[in-house]
């Protein structure tokens, strides 16, 4: 209350500063975690805008939409298996989410070695995912998919595909680098000296979010 009374007596701009700098904490979590959640919230809006844009062009196009089940099929063992590459990518990403969750847990148990191994495994699975995505892009570009057209139907298919999966792939790539830096710091004992492993949990939030976005892309772009 004393703070409010002091602030009320200040000139307007200083009052704004005093109000925003008021000695109160809204979220009872480390600041890094609160800021990561707010960043992920803004990223949610970005990816929803992409998926909504995709919905809009798919609803409004007069041409027929290419069938993702066939477009993303692979010829394996003498037969076409629908969507198989995307299914494998999904399982790779979920596996990496699992190893990440375990890494956070072992970090809080102060088990440095297991945390480093699990973080590196997560990064390796993430890199595998990006590699498979590069393979998928190459295959589609060779088949003639462009942002302005493709051999099978609605031209908007290519632009939506490259935009959405490209942006997600960038997130995964950034995540791999982020995880490797975190792993290096865990290995060097940086967080032991700092006295807390919460930074590993914050890195985990980002990684799980990348998996979360893929859940929606998988459902709306590949399965719909």
């Amino acid at each position, binding site marked *: 209350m004393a703070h409010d009374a002091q602030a009320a007596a200040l000139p307007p701009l200083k009052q704004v500063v005093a109000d925003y700098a008021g000695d109160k904490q809204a979220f009872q979590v480390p600041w890094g975690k609160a800021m990561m*959640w707010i960043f992920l919230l803004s990223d949610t809006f970005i990816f*929803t805008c992409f998926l*909504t844009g995709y*919905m809009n062009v798919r609803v409004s196009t007069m041409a027929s939409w290419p069938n993702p089940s066939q477009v993303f099929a692979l010829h394996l063992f003498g037969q076409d298996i629908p*969507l198989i590459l995307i299914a494998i990518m999904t399982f790779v990403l979920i596996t990496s989410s*699992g190893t990440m969750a375990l890494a956070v847990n072992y970090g809080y148990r102060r088990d440095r070695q297991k945390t480093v191994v699990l973080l590196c495994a997560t990064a390796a699975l993430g890199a595998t995912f990006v590699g498979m995505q590069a393979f998928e892009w190459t295959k589609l570009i060779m088949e003639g998919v462009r942002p302005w057209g493709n051999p099978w139907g609605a031209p908007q298919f290519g632009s939506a595909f490259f935009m959405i999966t490209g942006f997600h792939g960038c997130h995964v790539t950034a995540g791999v680098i982020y995880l490797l830096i975190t792993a290096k710091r865990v290995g060097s004992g940086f967080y032991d000296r700092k006295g*807390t492993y919460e930074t590993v949990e914050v890195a985990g939030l980002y990684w799980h979010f990348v998996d*979360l976005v893929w*859940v929606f892309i998988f*459902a709306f772009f590949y399965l719909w």
Partner: protein
Amino acid sequence: MSQAEGQQQHPLTIYLWIWLLLFVLSACSYAVDYFHLQGMLRWTLIIVFMLLKAGFIVAIFMHMAWERLALKFAILLPPLCLLVLIGFMAIEGDYTFITRGTAFLR
């Protein structure tokens, strides 16, 4: 031990169970495509499996289930306004489709 570490230490088994569950749910959504389900059944199953997976990732892997209500509100409520955007864009897309139909396909 810092404040966050006291709050977010959970038994390993819960992560392993959720991990397994996510695998099963992903296999289910892939099965929807593999068995060529169509129409309302397909769309309903896709949405149900998607929401279940998203819910478990946010609640357990991202620890949201154990966070305080203030943080849950701050992070989970704002995305609801995106439903308005999605609704508007669906209506607008339908309108564009009908307009194109009457203008170009006569």
